[in-house]
C-alpha cells in the first residue's frame, strides 16, 4: 500500500478532479480568495508559474510580496537565495524592505543582453526579439543548485522544451520559480503548474488576475 501512496503523491502524476492536490507544496499568497482556490493553499512551490504582464507597474511584484517576505525569512534559516534573473529595472531595496523582505537573501543576476543592457531597457516595457539562452541557463542553474528558495526571471522567449526542463527541475528541487513573460507568449503551450495574466482591476490592491491554467482547478478571475 505504501508503494501506491508514494506513487499517488508523485508530483509528476496528474489525477483528475483535483484529487490528491491538497498536499501540493505551496506558500500562502496573502490573499484569502486566492489561497482557497489554489491547490495546496498558495503559490505552487514545486513547479513553475508564468505571469503575463502587459505593462510593468500593474502590481506584478506586489501580488507576490507577502509570499516572498515569508519565504525570505525562511531562507535566512536555510541559507538559500532568492534569485532575480534579468529584472527589467532596479528592484528597489527600500520598498522590498518595507514589504518585509529580508534583503540578505536577495541575489540579482543581470545576464548580458545583445543590444541593450538589462538595466537600461525601455521603461514602457518595450521588448526586443530574440531568445534568452543566458537567462534560461541562469534559471536552470539556480533551480538545480538546490541553494535557491525562489527564482524570479524575466524571460522573453522560451520554447516548450526549455520550459519543460525548468518545470521538471523545479518539481524535483522544490524551488518556487516564477517566470514573467510578455503577453504574446500566452498562446504558447506550456507545462507550467500555474499561468495567469495580470491586469489593472478594481480590488483593494488594484489588481485583477485572470488564471489561464492551474493544475486541478478551472480557470477563473480574481480581483485583489
Amino acid at each position, binding site marked *: 500500500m505504501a508503494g501506491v501512496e508514494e506513487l499517488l503523491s508523485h508530483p509528476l502524476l496528474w489525477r483528475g478532479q483535483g484529487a490528491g492536490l491538497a498536499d501540493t507544496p505551496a506558500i500562502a499568497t496573502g490573499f484569502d480568495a486566492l489561497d482557497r482556490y489554489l491547490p495546496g493553499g498558495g503559490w505552487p512551490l514545486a513547479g513553475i508559474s508564468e505571469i503575463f504582464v*502587459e*505593462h*510593468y*507597474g*500593474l*502590481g*506584478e*511584484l*506586489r501580488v507576490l*510580496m507577502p509570499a516572498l517576505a515569508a519565504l525570505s525569512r525562511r531562507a535566512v*534559516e*536555510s*541559507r*538559500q*537565495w532568492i*534569485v532575480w534573473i534579468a529584472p*527589467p*529595472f*532596479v*528592484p*528597489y*531595496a*527600500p*520598498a*522590498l*524592505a*518595507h*514589504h*518585509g523582505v*529580508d*534583503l*540578505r*537573501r*536577495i*541575489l*540579482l*543576476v*543581470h*545576464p*548580458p543582453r545583445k543590444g541593450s543592457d538589462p*538595466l*537600461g531597457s525601455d*521603461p514602457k516595457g518595450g521588448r526586443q526579439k530574440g531568445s534568452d539562452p*543566458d537567462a534560461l*541557463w*541562469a534559471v536552470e*542553474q*539556480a533551480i538545480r*543548485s*538546490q*541553494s*535557491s528558495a525562489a527564482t524570479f526571471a524575466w524571460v522573453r522567449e522560451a520554447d516548450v522544451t526549455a520550459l519543460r526542463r525548468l518545470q521538471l527541475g523545479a518539481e524535483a528541487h522544490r524551488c518556487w520559480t516564477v517566470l514573467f513573460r510578455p503577453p504574446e507568449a500566452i498562446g504558447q503551450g506550456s507545462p507550467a503548474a500555474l499561468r495567469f495574466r495580470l*491586469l*489593472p482591476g478594481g480590488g483593494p490592491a*488594484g489588481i485583477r488576475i485572470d488564471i489561464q491554467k492551474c493544475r486541478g482547478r478551472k480557470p477563473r478571475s480574481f480581483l485583489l
Partner: protein
Amino acid sequence: MAALPHPALPADSLPIEQPKTRYRRARALWLALEVLGPPPDPAALESLACFAQSLTPIVVLRPREGLLLEVRGSLKIFSGLAGIKERLSVELARRGLNCRVATAPTPLAASWLVRYESVDIADEGALAGAIGRLPLAATDWPEEVQLMLRQMGLASIADCLRLPRAGFARRVGRERLDELDRALGKKPDFREAYQAPQTLCRVVEFATETIDQAAFVGTLSDIAASFEQTLRQHQMQVREVTLAFRHLRAEATRTRIRFVDPVHARERILDPLLARIERLGLCEPAIALSLTTSRLLPLEADVPGLLSLSNAQAARTVPEYALVECLRGRFGTRRVHGIDWVAEHRPERAWRRWIDRPNAGTQPGPACPPHGRPLWLLPQPERGLTPFSPPFSPERIESGWWDGFDVRRDYHVVVGAAGERLWLYRDCLTQEWYLHGLFG
C-alpha cells in the same frame, strides 16, 4: 591664562611593565638594510627577502625601504657579523643595489639608525646614546608630531627621552612613548617574519593545437581534482584561480575567477571555470593550458552556529556561494550581486549593491525603510512624460546641498494610460517631469 584643569599625574604614573623576557629576544641582534636611491619595488624587495632567508629564518619586510634580519643565531655559522655583511654585499652588488646596513639589539632602533648611519650597536647599554643622537626625522612619526616637537625646542630623540614620561605621553601620544620604549628594548616588539607566498600551478600541454571544449573540460577536471587533493593534504584553501590558454601565434588568453569564500573542494573550483570557458570564445587554438592559484590560505571550517541550524539543514551540504560563483563564472563578477537599503532621502542613493559578499545586507531591524516607495526604480530618471493631472498631493524630497548632488523634487503617484502606477517627479528648478519608478 588659566591653567587647564587636568588631573595631576605623578611623575611615575606610567611605569614600564617589565616584560617576561625570553632569552632569545633578550639577546637579539637586528640587522637593518636600507636600499639607497629610489624606493625598491615590492617584487624586488620580496626577491631580496628570499635571498636573505638563506642567512636567517627571521626576515621582516620594510615596505619601500628595505629589510630587517635577526642575525644573532647566525653569527656563528657565518663567522660573525662581518661574514654576514660580506655575503649580503656580494649579493647586493650582483643585483646592482646600493644599500646601507646598521645593526642594533631592537628592530625599531636598527631601522631608525640605518636611515642616517651605518653603525653596529651590539649591546643595549650603548643603544640609548646611539639613537639619542638621531634627529626626529629618523622616526616614522607623522609630520605634524615632528613639527610640534620642533616648535617645543626638541631636535633629537635624546631630547624626547629626557622629558617626563607622563607629560610626553599626554602631549605627544601614548603610541610615541611606546615606540621609544620598544626602540630601547624596554617593551617587546614582535615582528612578523616574511613568508614567501605559496601557490599551486599546473600546466598541461596538449598533443596538438586544439579548440575542443571537451578536452579543456577533461583537463580542468583533472587539475581541479589534484588541487583539491593537495589543498586537503596541506589543510589550505584558495581565494582566486587564474586560467590561461597558451597559443602558438598569439598572446595567452587569461581569465581570473575570484571566489566569494576561500574554497578547496573540486566542484567549487571547477564549476565556475566550466561556466567561464563556455563563454570565453578563444580566438586561437590552444597549445597548453595552465591553472594557477592565488596565495594559499589556512583552511577554516564553516561551522554553523550552535542553535542556528537544525540537523537536517546542517546535513544539506550545498554551500551557499556555489551558485553565486557559478553564475559569476559565466556572466562576470559585477553582474551577480546582492542589494541593501540605505537611510537616505534621495531615492537613487537609498539602495546599494553588495558585490563582494552578496548577503552582507542589514538585518531587518528597528530602522524603518520609507513608506510609499515603488518596487521598481529606473536606473536613470527618464524625461518627458507629463501627467494630465497629478491626483495625489506630492511628496517633496529636498536634500544633498552639501555634497554637490543637490535635488529638489516633488514626487507624484500617477496612474498611466494602461492602468500602471508610475512614480513621477517634477524638478523644482527646471519644472520638467521625470519618470523615476513603477509600482510593480
